[in-house]
């Protein structure tokens, strides 16, 4: 495992937004890029699960801490990962 996981890009704090990290595990290669560059250690590679190509894929371990910086999304080389952003206020209004 890596010693330094942080990238210099700091996520902007944003209390009004909620982020969902969506991962397509069939598409995911388990390459670890997303988690390596995530400033918040939110993603992990599953130790036991694997997809049909026998690849252990990425899973989200603490979605609530996501800062929405989208570094993972931009990096994912297989287009498997996507940050779904919802305005918390709006959500409340709608309910």
């Amino acid at each position, binding site marked *: 495992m890596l010693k330094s996981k942080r990238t210099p890009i700091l996520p902007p704090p944003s209390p009004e937004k909620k982020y969902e990290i969506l991962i397509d595990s069939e598409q995911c290669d388990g390459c670890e890029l997303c988690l390596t560059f995530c400033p918040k250690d939110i993603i992990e590679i599953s130790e036991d699960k*694997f997809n*049909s*190509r*026998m690849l252990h894929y990425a899973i989200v371990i603490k979605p609530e801490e996501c800062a929405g910086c989208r570094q993972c999304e931009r990096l994912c080389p297989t287009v498997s990962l996507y940050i779904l952003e919802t305005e918390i206020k709006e959500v409340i209004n709608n309910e």
Partner: protein
Amino acid sequence: MNEKLKIRFSGRGGQGIKFLGSVLVRVAMAANYYVTLTVDYTPSVRGGPIFCDVILDSAPISYPFCDKDADIFIAIDQKGFERASECIYEKTVSFIDEHTIANAEEIIQKGKIHRVPITRRADENKMPKSANILCLGFLSQYLKENGKIDLKEKYYDQVLNSMPERFRAINIQSYQLGQVLYKEYVNKSQ
């Protein structure tokens, strides 16, 4: 009559299928057979299908491919399987990975098909990259117990031991794992 054996291994790029074949022909050569190894592969990015045909013969070999006449077919990846399975005929004994290959039975419908957890076993043993040599051990055990030709353990040993030091231990271990798997498998299925 000639002693002759035709084997096809198939998988995907990066699984070391060609290496597996080359180890086997080396063993066979040590055991004094005529040998050929041919490879069918795709570019080395992200695991395209690959298969290789190994032919052992007590006489010189002319046509170096399986042509719907493989004695043994081993497949450890879906795409590789799909591309390679036309080698099978009524007498082929097929060992098909249990996890990575779907609907083999539908596609083949010929010969004898065994499902074996090859890649899973390698993965479980934390050596997913050694599934190829695991196959070798598996095959050697099969040949010993059922094959037309048994290449003798000592030749396997000879070749495995002549490998560069840094790979030797892991290869021998996978080889043995393969032998164990076969025995387990045989126990389970018979």
